[in-house]
């Protein structure tokens, strides 16, 4: 997030797009509710009539995968109505003129023809956001899990740059990060293109720095993403070490994923439970769990926070860092002599550009949001206040592209996937918590009541849902949250493995899968009631 969580109570206009925040980030959503009570206006863009849609002053029910069209239409209106922040654009951005010229062609009527949102609603939303003194954008995977995920994010950046809604209290562009430490995973350098603290691996200065720090020569080019690695499994990739991820259930295109893991010569999995992925492993190593482990999580507002052990480890389980350190030592790698989580964290901070000003002791109270460039620096709750890291904010020329797969005669219905309040990912954790089943015992396919009738389905009955990659049988729930022609399910339940169907395409830059769009056919299973 560019802005801190507490800023969520400050905007006068909030634009939520592709985020089901009341279910996926409920505590953050309470701050939006407070902002609304204080008089803020809410624009919600989402294909489904989720809670944020019901709370909205303007609801934009767009067709799945059409975000760039909607956002181009909004940019058009903001430009046409003279609602741009000229002073901000002149002082802090580049490429604005070309962008304003580019959006002239994308009228709200054009946008309506693609995204299905009435042009007048697009006008209203654009004017409301464009006139905001403090406008803040929030998004989640509904923006990024598309083949045009990067385009979607850059379209939002364009709106921010043309209205100057950044670098101030109650503004900004704010992705809500999903997992408890997914921000930290990227920060730590566990990505193919950056060393710890987002230092690019292709920069010769960084190469020299890390060659010295790690005591060996380093590759000069970036690595490959996990998506590519799975594609190459059994070929160029022959061994994997996977920590704490139920790849088989949470990744798209399950059959492809299972085949990839089976093809490896050597697979080592570190986890706290046996799961669908450990069943492919040659060696499974038991990790200590949350509640048993010392360390840090970094949250969505870039805050580094201590986690502490409250109980002893289960059985012989060991911390993740210890296990990896031991494997490295036994391979014969030099420099793997870490004795505590403190040692590991302190090296991370020392080599990071963003965590440089903290260490285990300084981070104790969780008061720092990165970047913390030097010791004594208070941290940076709000990014881009004085300027952008790379100089000027760059407008990007974006055009609409269709999803990788679009509805057809064979697969005439849009499936979109997501989260549910009571369960978390593949339920390895929430599925083992007493009581959760009382509220959420099984997966259902949310189908608009009129579609239930017209497709010959029964509320509570079973449907077979198929894509070009396979099929699942799933219980039907008549639910007006789904628009006509679009159905929704989560991927949480292993006995309803919805990710068998998904995986039609990937963003070319990030390799993020298009999990939010998958054309399917839905037919009744005979004999079900």
């Amino acid at each position, binding site marked *: 997030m560019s802005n801190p969580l507490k800023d969520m109570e400050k905007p006068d206009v909030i634009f939520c797009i592709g985020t089901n925040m009341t279910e996926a980030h409920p*505590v953050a959503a309470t701050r939006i509710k407070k902002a609304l009570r204080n008089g803020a206006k809410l624009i919600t863009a989402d294909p489904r009539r989720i809670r944020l849609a019901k709370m909205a002053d303007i609801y934009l029910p767009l067709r799945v995968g059409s975000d760039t069209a909607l956002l181009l239409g909004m940019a058009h209106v903001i430009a046409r109505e003279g609602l741009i922040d000229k002073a901000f654009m002149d002082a802090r951005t580049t490429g604005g003129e070309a962008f304003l010229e580019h959006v002239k062609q994308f009228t709200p009527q054009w946008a309506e023809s693609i995204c299905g949102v009435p042009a007048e609603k697009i006008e209203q939303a654009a004017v409301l956001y464009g006139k905001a003194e403090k406008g803040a954008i929030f998004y989640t995977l509904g923006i990024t899990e598309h083949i045009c995920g990067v385009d979607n994010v850059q379209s939002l950046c364009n709106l921010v740059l043309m209205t100057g809604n950044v670098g101030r209290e109650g503004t900004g562009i704010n992705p809500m990060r999903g997992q408890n*430490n997914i921000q930290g995973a990227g920060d730590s350098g566990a990505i193919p293109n950056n060393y710890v603290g987002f230092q690019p691996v292709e920069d010769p200065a960084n190469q020299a720095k890390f060659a010295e720090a790690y005591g060996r020569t380093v590759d000069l080019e970036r690595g*490959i993403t996990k998506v590519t690695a799975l594609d190459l499994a059994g070929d160029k990739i022959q061994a994997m*070490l996977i*920590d704490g991820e139920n790849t088989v259930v949470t990744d798209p295109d399950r059959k492809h994923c299972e085949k990839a893991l089976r093809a490896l010569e050597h697979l*080592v999995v570190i986890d706290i439970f046996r799961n669908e992925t450990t069943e492919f492993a040659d060696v*499974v190593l038991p990790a200590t769990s949350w509640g048993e482990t010392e360390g840090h999580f970094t949250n969505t507002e870039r805050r580094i926070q201590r986690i502490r052990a409250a109980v002893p480890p289960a059985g012989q389980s060991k911390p993740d860092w210890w296990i990896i350190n031991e494997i490295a030592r*036994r391979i014969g790698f030099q420099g793997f002599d870490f004795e505590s989580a403190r040692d590991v964290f302190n090296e991370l901070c020392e080599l990071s550009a963003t965590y440089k000003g903290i260490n285990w002791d300084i981070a104790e109270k969780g008061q720092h949001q990165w970047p913390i460039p030097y010791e004594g620096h208070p941290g940076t709750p709000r990014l881009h206040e004085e300027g952008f890291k790379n100089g000027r904010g760059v407008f990007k020329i974006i055009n609409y592209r269709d999803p990788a797969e679009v509805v057809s005669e064979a697969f005439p219905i849009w499936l979109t996937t997501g989260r549910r309040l009571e369960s978390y990912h593949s339920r390895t954790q929430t599925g083992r918590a007493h009581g959760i089943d009382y509220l959420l015992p099984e997966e259902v396919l949310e189908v608009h009541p009129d579609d239930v009738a017209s497709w010959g389905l029964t509320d509570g009955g079973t449907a077979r849902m198929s894509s070009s990659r396979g099929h699942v049988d799933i219980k039907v729930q008549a639910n007006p949250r789904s628009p006509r022609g679009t159905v929704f399910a989560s991927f949480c339940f292993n006995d309803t493995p919805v990710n068998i169907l998904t995986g039609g395409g990937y963003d070319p830059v990030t390799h993020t899968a298009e999990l939010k769009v998958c054309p399917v056919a839905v037919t009744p299973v005979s004999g079900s009631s």
Partner: protein
Amino acid sequence: MTKNPTEFSLTLDGKTVNFTPGETLYEVAQRHQKDIPTLCYDPRLESFGGCRLCVVRLEGAKNPVASCTTRAEAGMVVHTSTPDIETHRKTLLEMVLSENRELEVSPLRGYASQELTELSERYQARTGRFEGKQSGESRIDDTNPFILRDYDLCISCYRCVRVCAEEEGDYAISVMNRGFETQITTEFGGLLKDSDCTFCGQCVQTCPTGALADKKAMRYSETPGEIIKTRSICTYCGVGCSVDIMTKGEQIVGLQPAMDGPANEGALCIKGQFAYDFVQHEDRLTTPLVRGDDGELHEATWEEALDKAADGFKRVMRIHGRHAVYGVASGRTPIEGDYMMQRFIRAGFGTNYIDNCSRA
């Protein structure tokens, strides 16, 4: 005593103190470490003035005033603890206690569950002084596994109703009737499951009597041992709510939100509040497993398993080269695990063949 009160100062127990416009007398007193008793007060909520325990003497006012609803004004002369005021508070407390006679409630019921108990001890207040009637009827029919609705202990402070509305924005519970007929209820008087309740547990944690209680934690009421709280961060989602993990001995018995958590300021959701018990679940992996010649996973020692893990990577590196090895770090492990995973790949194999689970 000041003779010329400045624009934003008043006299508090004989001392001149400053205040910010809009501050209540209670807030001013809190800042100056005055221990004024309250029951209906939660600093996160709008002042309510229901319990009247926070009364103070304000010179010039005929009756004691509720400090939580009285805004500070320049020149006020306030006494927070006179014998009269303390007697008044004790009487009020005994009226409250007349409808709530059960004072021994387990602290596992909720974060604020001891407030009434502690006040009754502080004021040596008796439960039987007034012959009151009891308001609120317990909902034993609500068999949800999370929230006990033990309204026999309810004192009608409405903190649950207010936290649900003001902090959660859910408006799932409300108040029905008045006086001794007061009942905390949901729309149509049904079960929480059938209301707008999201089971975030905020009502449980703000209840000052334990009338709303954490059913999961109460399973350990009889477990011997002192309750120890360990400050940590919730393991679900990227918001990063601060929590206190509660343990008795080596058993996790419950979890409470940290009121001073920077990300959550006392709030949690159903997952954070109630879905912690996977940690000590019997399904946990407790020993390393190694795949045998029979194709099955078998328990192994750490020595065997680590050697087998290392040998496999060595073999693949020897035959296929160092670019044949790939590391996948987790968005759930602490950052120390992520850092070590990328270090393993970069410092060990010298490649950038590393990623985490953020692309799915």
